[in-house]
């Protein structure tokens, strides 16, 4: 998968975020989340982590303590769209495995992998509170529940930009 090339304009945008939060290290979590939001591969490259550490005057180990602690922050690149399949107790009772099989077959990848073209990453997630429509997955920030095979294929095709009229 392609890594993000960190250029000056990206660092400038991150500097803007840091300044919006008064270069205050207490706002590290928010700064990291907003910075990651600028990067299409949904991760924080090492250069960026170091840059933030320097700007906030804190050791890079502390920055990485936070990045690696939280599930929503990544230190490795992901696909353009991240599909997170819930495998919590509720979705287990409602057989999330059936969704997994369909997703793996449709995307030709296994859980934890990214498609060759870098458009999708498939991974497990903890409960994201969609138990009333379980089994469920979320793609980026959007939650999908009450799923059937046809619906899943339709959703994936939508993200692929393929029309199915």
């Amino acid at each position, binding site marked *: 998968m392609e890594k993000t090339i960190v250029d000056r304009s990206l660092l400038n945008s991150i500097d803007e975020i840091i300044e919006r939060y008064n270069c205050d290290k207490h706002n590290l979590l928010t700064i990291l*989340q907003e910075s990651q939001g600028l990067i299409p591969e949904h991760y924080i490259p090492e250069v960026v982590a170091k840059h933030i550490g320097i700007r906030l005057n804190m050791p890079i180990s502390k920055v990485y303590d*936070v990045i690696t*602690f939280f*599930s929503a922050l990544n230190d490795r690149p992901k696909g353009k769209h991240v599909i997170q399949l819930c495998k*919590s*107790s*509720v979705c*287990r*009772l409602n057989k999330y495995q059936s969704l997994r099989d369909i997703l793996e077959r449709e995307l030709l990848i296994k859980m934890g992998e990214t498609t060759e073209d870098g458009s999708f990453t498939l991974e497990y997630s903890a409960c994201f509170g969609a138990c009333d429509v379980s089994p469920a997955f979320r793609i980026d*920030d959007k939650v999908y529940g009450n799923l059937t095979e046809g619906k899943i294929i339709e959703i994936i095709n939508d993200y692929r930009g393929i029309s199915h009229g």
Partner: protein
Amino acid sequence: MDRTVSIISKNFKKYNIESIDEYLSLGGFKALEKAFDLGPKGIINELNASGLRGRGGAAYPTGKKWEQASRVPGHRKVIICNADEGEPATFKDRYLLQYDPYKVIEGMIIAAITFNANEGYIYIREEYKYLHDKFRRAIQLSKEKGFLGENILNNGFNFDITVFSGAGAYVCGESTALIESMEGKSGRPRLKLNRTSEKGLYQLPTLANNVETLAAVTSILYTGGEEYGKYGTPSSRGTKLISLCGNVNRPGAYEVPFGVTLREIVYDIGGGIKEGKALKFLQLGGASGAIVPPSLLDLKYCYEELGNKGIDIGSGAVLVADETNRVVDFLKSVQDFFLHESCGKCTPCREGNRQITKILNRFVTGEGSVEDLKTIERFSNVMKYASFCGLGKTAPTALLSAIEHFPIEFYQQIHRVRKTS
């Protein structure tokens, strides 16, 4: 008979949250006006009269908590609304944020009046990112109407709310871990030398409450503490939002008065088990809650009757599992969750979860032993008593209750009897 009620959930799906006027037409912000008239003492009296207890899981009487907090001196104080609803099988706070955000905002302002705080934060979990901007919009609209900001309703009181996004850590539902993460650190719980109400966020006096508790406060001031306290049982008063899910026909968030039976919840409200199957067990209160066998279905859903059986109401999750599920498989999914979410700060939780997962895997594959069963029980008890925070203390609850109620399921998975040394 459907035993659901609508007090806290009164406005669900009744109005468009983009329009604060619609909320006002449903009696919105009337509780706030009343709160200004009552003042801190009057508010606390109403809460005491209502019998409200914290709905996040700890069930501490809210009136008492606020009374103690209101005595803490300080110029700069903080209100936190804990919307880091990470407990698996729980989604009732999401309903509140999604369908009645102003009620939560109103509750936060009432808390601020009581605590004399001018800063408020709502910590919404990252998984509800699609609600962050909607909630920000609700804050903005409230501000435009003069319910937030400076000189609220010409009472000379200032209060504002900021949305803070969680980042996907279950342990941050624990209030000190939540505060740590808000201070730019990894979310590991603090050693509680002081109450959060004395030294919380940035060491400032901080009053933190669950979303449902704050929404209930609004409802209580609106309907009156006595009136709200008429629902429920004499010692578990009021109503509770439950998250009903699993192999049940009508999953969803419902409001019930305390005292309904578990059977009524599953069969009347939930419409029974999917495909007409038989019930295997319930899990109450989320992944950290106890497993309840069908023989206890006639228990009343209230703090004391469940408490006597060692069951907590917890977050209000009611997870239904049908007869096709093996208890050990279910426990494995619970255990995988805790292994992933343990923050690693204390040894009992970090290592306990790791070892229990290993041993439980042997039961799943049918390679368990009698010693294994004794070991997981012993480790579970160590975790229960020696863990640093609630996560480790409650992580083995499901396992221990399953061993108590479904021992046969474990014995069936025992491969051979190993010799003890």
